[in-house]
Each structure stands twice: as structure tokens, then as C-alpha cells.
């Protein structure tokens, strides 16, 4: 048994294809991103080493900070929206007939590509023929805004489809966690005279704290990487008012052909993702694992 299952040659053969792909296509590129960040490079010609100039430029680049600011706003919105998802999951997990059907309907937008969602919402937001403004005009608003062309509104307008897209995902995670709570615990609280609010806030929520923490990390880190939907719907516009870090990186590299600077932005994005993940895990780390018994 031991001899057969410790065959190193077979183990190597099993692991190497995947490991090579991971190293060549994930790990080496992140190192290279940092390295290219030290270069002046148009992506095709020769690279010139310029030290930390790109990173210095990044720190003074107000457009970059504006995009970082938008990214953080999205992360904040996403984290806050978790409260709503959690409430819906609490309701859904409370012995509701057809809970399964609701849960599945909520999930549908999550299955669609961001491009399809973006194109659909472009039509919803269409200034004159979109379903939103048609509705607003019908109920008496004579001059509804062109949502995506309004610098002060665009970020909020973009957040609605994001909220729509991910609702089912987070509700599903919370629902699964809530369903895992042993019925006996809730029953015991009920016998002790706890009302539904007390059961929700004093019993159920504390028991799924771990899951809530994971979703906060997911929502925040997910927002840091947000790209597809914004790229299709506004391309960062109007005038940079919906630019986020990932779209700024893409623009610098693949539109302005400033691959060195784009790499610096990309490397910064990687660092932020890792640091934020680490920080959130640290801040939300539990002192002791939760026991159901």
C-alpha cells in the first residue's frame, strides 16, 4: 500500500501539468508585472529601465487616485449591500414555502456574463427609450436624467446592476449557512420565550459570523477587481467619473500603450488585493471557533 501510493514519479506526473500552468500563467506573470513596472515600455519595442519612476508617477497621478476612490466606493457599497442580502436570507430560511424556488430565481442574473448584463442595463438606462425612464415619465417625472452620462450619478447607476447581479450569490451563501444551524438551538430559544427578532439577531447571526466575514472579504476584494461591466457600460466615462483601478490599468496598457505604467498600476492592484484580504482576515479573525453544541 505505502509503496504504491508513495510512487514519486506518478505523483510528479499527476501534479506537474497543472503546476506548470499555474507557475507560468499566474505566478511568473505577477512577478513580471512588478518588474515591468520598473520599465518604460510601449509593449512592443525595447524596454528602458527607469527604476521607481512609474510608481512615483502613480502616487502623484490624481486620475489614478480618482479611480482608486471609485473602487473604494464600490467596495463600500458592496459591503453595505450584504446587510440587505443577509436580511433576505434570514427571511428565506424561516420555513417559507417555496424557499427553493425563490433562491433559484434570485440566482439567475449571477449566471449571465457581465457583457450581457452590461448590454441589457445599457438599454434599461437608455435616456429616451429605456425601461427606467419610460417608467419615470409615466409616473410624472418630466425630465428624468441620462443616468450614465451624468458624472455625479454614473457610479451609483453602475452599482445597481452590480447589486442585481450578485444578490442571488450572497443570499445563497447566507441561506446555506443559516440552514446549517441545528434546529434544536432555535427551538430551545423559542421555548425560552425568544421572539423572532431575538432569534435572528442573538442566535442565528452570531452563529454564522464566520460566513459573514468570508462574504465581506469576497465583496470587498471582488469590487477591487471589478472591470467587465464598467468597461462595457461606460468605459470609465463620462470623463473618468466611473473609472476604476482595473479599467485604468487596462486603459494605460492597451489603449495608451504605456505598458510600463499600466504594469505599475496592475502591481499596485495586486498589492492592494493581497493587503486588503490579509487585513480583513486579521480584523475579522475569531478568537475561538464557534461550536454549535
Amino acid at each position: 500500500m505505502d509503496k504504491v501510493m508513495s510512487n514519486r514519479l506518478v505523483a510528479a506526473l499527476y501534479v506537474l501539468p497543472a503546476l506548470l500552468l499555474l507557475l507560468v500563467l499566474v505566478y511568473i506573470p505577477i512577478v513580471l508585472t512588478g518588474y515591468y513596472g520598473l520599465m518604460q515600455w510601449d509593449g512592443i519595442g525595447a524596454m528602458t529601465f527607469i527604476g521607481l519612476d512609474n510608481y512615483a508617477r502613480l502616487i502623484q497621478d490624481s486620475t489614478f487616485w480618482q479611480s482608486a476612490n471609485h473602487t473604494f466606493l464600490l467596495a463600500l457599497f458592496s459591503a453595505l449591500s450584504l446587510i440587505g442580502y443577509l436580511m433576505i436570507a434570514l427571511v428565506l430560511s424561516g420555513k417559507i414555502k417555496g424557499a427553493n424556488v425563490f433562491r433559484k430565481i434570485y440566482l439567475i442574473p449571477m449566471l449571465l456574463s457581465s457583457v450581457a448584463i452590461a448590454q441589457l442595463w445599457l438599454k434599461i438606462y437608455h435616456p429616451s427609450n429605456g425601461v427606467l425612464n419610460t417608467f419615470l415619465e409615466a409616473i410624472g417625472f418630466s425630465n428624468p436624467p441620462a443616468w450614465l452620462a451624468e458624472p455625479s450619478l454614473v457610479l451609483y447607476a453602475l452599482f445597481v446592476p452590480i447589486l442585481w447581479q450578485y444578490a442571488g450569490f450572497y443570499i445563497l451563501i447566507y441561506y446555506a449557512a443559516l440552514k446549517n444551524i441545528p434546529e434544536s438551538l432555535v427551538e430551545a430559544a423559542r421555548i425560552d420565550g425568544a421572539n423572532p427578532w431575538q432569534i435572528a439577531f442573538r442566535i442565528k447571526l452570531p452563529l454564522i459570523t464566520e460566513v459573514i466575514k468570508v462574504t465581506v472579504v469576497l465583496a470587498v476584494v471582488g469590487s477591487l477587481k471589478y472591470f467587465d461591466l464598467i468597461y462595457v457600460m461606460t468605459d470609465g466615462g463620462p470623463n473618468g467619473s466611473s473609472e476604476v483601478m482595473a479599467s485604468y490599468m487596462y486603459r494605460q496598457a492597451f489603449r495608451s500603450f504605456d505598458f510600463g505604467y499600466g504594469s505599475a498600476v496592475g502591481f499596485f492592484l495586486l498589492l492592494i488585493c493581497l493587503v486588503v484580504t490579509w487585513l480583513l482576515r486579521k480584523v475579522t479573525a475569531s478568537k475561538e471557533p464557534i461550536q454549535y453544541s
Partner: protein
Amino acid sequence: MKTDTAVRLPVHPETGQGSEWLRRLGYVLLYVLLSLVAVLQILPLIWLLLFSLKNNQEVFDMAPFALPATPRWENYVKVWTEGNISLYFFNSVWVTVVSVVFTVLFASLVTFAITRMRWKGRSLVLGLFMVGLMIPVHSTLIPLFSLFLKLHLTDHPLSVILSYIAFNMPITIMILLGFYYALPREVEEAAVMDGCSVNRIFFRIVLPMTASVIATTAIINMIYDWNEFIFVNTFISSDAYKTLTVGVQNFIGQYTTDWGAIGATLMISILPILIAFLVLSERIVEGIAAGSVKG
């Protein structure tokens, strides 16, 4: 205590039976809330279906949710035959199938070697895959582009397929791990007694035993690969290799004013996933819950 209603909102010991109507009211309110959310989740898609069956005049003159007098299926025929949508569609199909098969196969091999075999460095290798979960795709995009450029793989489907396999490997392994750890050791012991080789144990015994979790990971991978945008958008430039997400994006550019055609294109791009969901919804729900680490 009455338990005939579906919601067992508790009968408060002090207020007792008198709160029966309150209980029912609460039940109705919760239902209204849940249904409202369900309607909001589904309404944009119904609107999309409706305008995909109308012409521009009908889209602009009729109420948004009015049914067209006669559904204009010709919108679908037009976009399917006129442009490259059918080409993009089949590119999506084969790129997705190849990527899913290799991702699941490689991930199964790795998970088997890590959880069932004994060799030095197992935990290090597992750690490498798990850290991979946190790395943003965008931070690797520029080096990947220049790597594929050097290998003459830009504008080649292999660039996209290899990237999908590499980037979906960590999540796939993560879902498989728990399942593999739970497999009983006795199975392998008996097989070894009978003189089975490792390959035989893996391909003939373990792989068939993991069929259900393989289906789950395959579906999750399918959804990610079918919907992927940024790799195709960056690496592929000729129409011959574009997949639906990018193809749809370009295609719609040509039809900026024809809402029916745009609607039909979008419907074609999301239908396979919707059909898969109707058929396999239980497994998809399970898979998304299992793969919840990837946002």
C-alpha cells in the same frame, strides 16, 4: 400550538393564541418582500425577451412589457445568419468544452496526488494553488499578453484555453479537496492488495467515485468559461476565434439602433446557461455554494 401554516413564527408564550392574525400578517409581508425581490431579479430578463421579439417601432411605441402582436422570430434568424454570431457561438462551445475537460482532469489528478498519495512537498504545492485564489486576473494581463505574443499564441484559441485552465484550477481543486479527503482509505487498500497500479486506482476506481463532485466543478467551470471576457478581449483579435462574450460586444456595435437584433443576440448568448440552469439547477446551486470563495 397550531402548526398548520408553513411559517412557524412562534406563538409568544405571553401573548399566546391572540397573535394568530399577526402571524398571518407577518407571513404575508414576508411573502410580498420575497416576491418583490424575485420580480426585480427576473423583470429585466423578461423585458429583454420581449424586445428581442419586437421591431424598433414596437419597442419605442408600445409599453415596455406589452407583448408584440406577432413575435418577430426573424430577429433571431437575422442575427444568427447575417453576422458571425453562429461562429462565435460554436467557438464558445468548443473553447468551453476543452477548457472544462482539462481543468477538471488536471485538478482531479492534483487533488488525488495531494490527498491520497504520500510525497514531500504536498502541502507546499497545495498552498501554491490556494494562494492562486486571491490573485486578480488583471494584474497578470500585461505579462500574459507579452508572453503569448512571444510564443505566437496571441490571436490563437490556445492562449485563452490555457489561461482558463490555469486560473480556474485553484477553485476547482478547492471544491474537490473536501470530497477527496472524505473518500475511505479501504478502497485503495483493497485495490493495492489486488495488485492495482496507481493509474488504475485513479482512473478506474477514484475518478468514477467522484463523478458527482466532478459534475459540480464542471458546471462551475462552464459558467466561468462561457462568460469570460477580458482574456478573449485582450488576446484574440480576429473574428474567427472570438467567443460569444466578445463577439456580442462587437456585434452590438454594428446594430446600435436595432433593438430587436440586439435583444436577439443577447438572448442567444445567455440561453445555453439558462437552459443548463433549468435542467441542472440543484447542482448549480450546490456548486456555487461550494465555490463561494471566488467572487
